[in-house]
């Protein structure tokens, strides 16, 4: 199953609603980059409120999505990281330091606007 990517003005919105398997995660990475290219989006918000765990593979994919989008010229904000997810990621030894995050979708969009400077 593919993760839907919605366009909203100059941004893309993604809400990941189910547990990611490896294949879906990699497919998403590719789909998102193509969509950025296609729509000339400046920013992306990926909401992961529904995700209740992230392992090192998914963390790598999300971190890579951030860096790859940046390379293309789009900013990515990840929103809705659950307490259990934050705890396990840090215990795993993954801090995703360079990745932009916000508490929820609303704050994520605000952060994106700030980052994009308008």
């Amino acid at each position, binding site marked *: 199953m593919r993760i839907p990517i919605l366009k909203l003005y100059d941004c893309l919105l993604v809400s990941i609603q189910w547990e990611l398997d490896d294949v879906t995660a990699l497919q998403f990475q590719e789909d998102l980059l193509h969509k950025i290219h296609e729509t000339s989006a400046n920013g992306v918000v990926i909401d992961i409120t529904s995700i209740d*765990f992230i392992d090192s593979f998914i963390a790598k994919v999300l971190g890579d999505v951030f860096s790859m989008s940046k390379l293309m010229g789009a900013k990515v904000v990840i929103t809705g990281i659950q307490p259990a997810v934050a705890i*396990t990621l840090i215990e795993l030894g*993954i801090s995703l330091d360079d990745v932009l995050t916000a508490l929820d979708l609303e704050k994520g969009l605000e952060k994106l606007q700030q980052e994009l400077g308008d």
Partner: protein
Amino acid sequence: MEFQSCVKIINEWDIVAARQLGRNVAKELGFGTVDQARITTAISELARNIYLYAGQGSVCIEKLNEDGKSGLKIIAEDQGPGIEDIRRVMEDGYTTSGGLGAGLPGAKRLMDEFDIESIPGEGTTIVAMKWLR
């Protein structure tokens, strides 16, 4: 005989099946959401290692009941190439697959007890436990 349930790891989908099994058992045992996430993540790391390095193997989940303490045990077993240098694979950031190198040391931190036995050329068995507090 205590409860035990196993998932054979042959492809990527089996990693999902293994962690779903683990999460369900953790829930049944009464683990909170953070511990459920720890257990699920640890299983995912161990199952992925089997898939990546050994090709195939199995992940078994057991319910533990010792001296009035309840817990969950993960047994990840394969007949793969084995690990030459266990100390090395337990170092953060060490990887031979282009991953983050967080899998084994991370899984150890997420669980209460963690034990690796590996014989080069014969395979690897990892046993990890989490106790209900």
